[in-house]
């Protein structure tokens, strides 16, 4: 799941946009959804969103999940889907380069390619749908931490390593958000659990021993948040020190509901699949996906009705929206 959560860099799009040539609006959409791996809950949840959008559009949608998390397995699925006459591929790539030849072949045959969750190089697809923005994640973390701490008090951060790019960006945005909107929350320490349960647990113990007054630990890592919550739920600090961060609702459900005062944040994966279908439809219909272009979504979107194409860290992308905070009140609605 670490692989799934790692946000891959978005590449420049524009080039290789094959959509306009056969943007026949009367044509039926035949969509193949090819995730990194078919068997895990994260992508199964995304496919629920894909199917929901397809039902709205009356499109034919198939879930073509490979049984192993390799580029080779995805290449087979891509080729098989093109053979079978699918005209849209929605792909979460296992490798940013290895899929490109197969995807270029597909596009040469008039197939529309949209990536989501993790991207390929720019000439392998028309557009990339990215998860929540880093700023949105930082805001969700800050809000969750403040809510759990009761609006005031000391909190600590449990990260992975000091040079982990994603974590540092999220932590920076969280600190900015705290400074701007939650002035009574103070970050007293940042510990590094190296994304391993062993170190994350030891560091959680250390944080609580060194800073007995902290009210919450924020772990923007799927391993760290579970390790921290597991430790707290079995210690004397249960109910006194809250845990939040980035994590899957299924991973955290036990601790969110056991009175440990835990929450988790992540993008809404089901809506992620839903939005990807509408983005693909837009591209298929000849719509513009250059920076600044508006891309409409469907009536069942849980976020915005329309998204703007932006320049990501390295290229153009469409961002899903703000992160969702999973609490004891809503966690049962999510299954991934």
């Amino acid at each position, binding site marked *: *799941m*670490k*692989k799934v959560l790692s946000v891959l860099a978005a590449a420049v799009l524009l080039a290789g946009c094959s959509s306009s040539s056969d943007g026949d609006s009367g044509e039926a959409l035949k969509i193949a959804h090819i995730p990194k*791996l078919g*068997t*895990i809950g994260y992508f199964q949840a995304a496919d629920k969103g894909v199917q929901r959008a397809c039902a709205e559009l009356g499109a034919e949608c198939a879930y073509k999940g490979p*049984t*192993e*998390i390799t580029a080779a397995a995805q290449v087979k699925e891509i080729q098989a889907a093109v053979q079978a006459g699918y005209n849209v591929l929605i792909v979460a790539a296992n490798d940013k380069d290895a899929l490109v030849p197969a995807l270029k072949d597909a596009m040469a045959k008039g197939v529309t390619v949209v990536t989501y969750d993790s991207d390929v190089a720019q000439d392998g697809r028309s557009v990339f749908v990215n998860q929540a923005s880093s700023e949105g994640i930082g805001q969700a973390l800050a809000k969750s931490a403040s809510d759990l701490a009761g609006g005031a008090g000391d909190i600590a951060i449990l990260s992975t390593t000091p040079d982990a790019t994603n974590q540092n960006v999220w932590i920076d945005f969280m600190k900015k958000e705290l400074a701007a909107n939650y002035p009574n929350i103070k970050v007293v*320490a940042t*510990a*590094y*659990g*190296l994304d391993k*349960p*062993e*170190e994350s*647990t*030891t*560091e959680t*113990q*250390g*944080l*609580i*021993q*060194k800073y*007995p007054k902290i009210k919450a630990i924020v772990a923007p890592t799927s*391993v760290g948040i*579970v*390790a921290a919550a*597991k430790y707290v739920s*079995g*210690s*004397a*600090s249960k109910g006194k020190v809250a845990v939040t961060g980035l994590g899957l609702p*299924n*991973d*955290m*459900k*036990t*601790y969110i509901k056991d009175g440990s005062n835990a929450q988790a944040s992540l993008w809404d994966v089901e809506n992620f699949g839903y939005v990807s279908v509408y983005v693909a439809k837009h591209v298929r219909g000849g719509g513009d996906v250059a920076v600044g272009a508006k891309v409409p979504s469907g009536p069942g979107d849980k976020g915005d009705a329309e998204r703007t194409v932006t320049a990501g860290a390295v290229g153009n992308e469409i961002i899903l929206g703000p992160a969702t905070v999973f609490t004891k009140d809503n966690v049962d609605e999510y299954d991934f």
Partner: protein
Amino acid sequence: MNLFSKLKISSREASLAVILFITIGVTGLINPRFLTGDGTKDLLTSTSVVAILAIGITPIVVMRHIDISIASTVGLSAWVIADFCKKNPDFIWWQCFVIGAIIGLAVGVLNGLLVAGLRLPSLVVTLGTLYIVRGAVYVVSNSIDYNAQEMPPSLLALGQKVYFGILPFTFLLVIIAVLATAFFMKYTKSGRDAYAIGSNPPAADLVGLKVFRRTFLAFVFSGFMAGVAGVFYLMRFAQVDSTAFYGQELAVVAAVVIGGVTIMGGSGTVVGAVIGALLVQTIQGGLAALGVDAFWKPAINGLLLIIAIFADRRIAVSSEKRLLAQRIRERV
């Protein structure tokens, strides 16, 4: 006299215990919360996995062998148990132990046959099985990971169980295992043979010790303990993926060596190995409680290891001198 001397506890273990208590005391002075009931419970809980593995490999190291496949076995055991539990929601805690033990025994038998049967060097054999078993975890796991939701509540409850406010269930098992193994190593022929084999393997062969059987069983025992450690891992972390316990084998070897089990074989006890594991964990927990970054952990471990080897060497040299002096006196 007392239990200590009967279980072959030398001054090495006693001095280690003193170092352990000084370390705990100093950390406690700087941060008193380290010494609370919760702090002690945390220390014992976090030592359990390494301690049970240290007990497992001590007989092997005493026999001048090594088993570095243990961390991979822990990973395989933990993942497969979680997978079984996910597919059989009625599973309860002891069934997890049974599955873990079977997996551990299987790896142990493989190692034992290769090392004892084919007489291959154990470092190379277990390096091979380290990769094979970890590869097996990657293949069977297929990137699926498991969390508390998928694990038997009875197992997780047992993982949280604490006696007298400080003694976790897993460490109770460690104590039982260390007493049983110490007794075995000291009072049975097989146990004493282990020291003879490790002191001088060719001589052990010549005098007709059952080297094959002893070596084979030592690897089976180590595998078994690694399988059990997989259950401990789940009880402690309630999460497992294909990288579970990756690369931790050397931490166990370090604990054993720091605990006074000579890497060249022939001496050391399981009591020492467990004290070594406690010492390593105390220092790490202490550093975290004092706010020192986790990056110092490997460096501190390495330093401890070198100090331990140095102490071993000093003890060996001084006892050699003493023996020599004694012999000279006897001749004069």
